[in-house]
């Protein structure tokens, strides 16, 4: 296998943990934001309890923790705009797309039109997406 320094790889960040109970979601998001500077072909997948990361209206004030959920809104500015959410995981949790933060990005090739970043996909579609990747990190 040939590896070139200039090569663009397909990176997928899989998020399978709920926020706040453990730090994986928070520190995983930090990897994605730093990684955005490397100009790779990046997407995120939210599977299982990972879908809870995108829940609207998170407020950690009473729990005395940091609320990192607003940082997901920054993803679009970093050109991380493919956020795949597994439909089956939402349904199993009694959740729907309306529960998720309305994350968007601005498409410079389309006169900076604001477009949704979140795409709810089936398990089968997600399985296909997994196969396409070069590097997969799991948080």
């Amino acid at each position: 296998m040939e590896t070139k320094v200039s090569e663009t790889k397909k990176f997928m960040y899989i998020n399978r943990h709920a926020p706040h109970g453990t730090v994986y979601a928070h520190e995983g998001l930090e990897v994605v934001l730093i990684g955005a500077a490397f100009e790779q072909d990046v997407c995120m997948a939210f599977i299982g309890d990972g879908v809870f990361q995108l829940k609207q209206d998170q407020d950690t004030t009473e729990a005395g923790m940091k609320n990192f959920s607003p940082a997901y809104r920054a993803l679009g500015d970093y050109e991380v705009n493919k956020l795949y959410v597994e439909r089956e995981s939402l349904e199993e949790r009694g959740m729907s797309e309306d529960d998720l933060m309305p994350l968007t990005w601005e498409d410079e090739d389309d006169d900076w039109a604001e477009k949704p970043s979140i795409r709810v996909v089936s398990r089968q579609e997600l399985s296909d997406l997994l196969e396409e990747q070069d590097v997969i990190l799991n948080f």
Partner: protein
Amino acid sequence: MKFSVMVNEGPYTHQASDTAYQFTRAALAAGHEIFRVFFYHDGVNNGTRMTTPPQDDRNIVNRWSELAAEHELDLVVCVAAAQRRGIVDADEAKRNGKDGDNIAPGFRISGLGQLIEAGIQSDRLLVFGD
């Protein structure tokens, strides 16, 4: 009522230390006694003074140290668990040939007997972990 609290996970990685802290604060506010807070497993990592969390985040270690100072809490780090993970006070540093220590203010290192004693002496033992 006399409570003891056991914390089994380190700061930030799991919410255990946060919940234990909030419980302890609420118990004190309600007029209860905290006999001891015992740190075991990765919980010993709450007792290092070397953390520098982001400025917009809570400082978990300092929060414990400050609560201990305010209420004379007994914060005990298990010695065996601490040795596996590198939490060291001056005595332990000397004993194990380490060139420094990292224990945070208000914490002390002692044996597992302190946990059993807490279970015997307290009306309730609350455990927070992974």
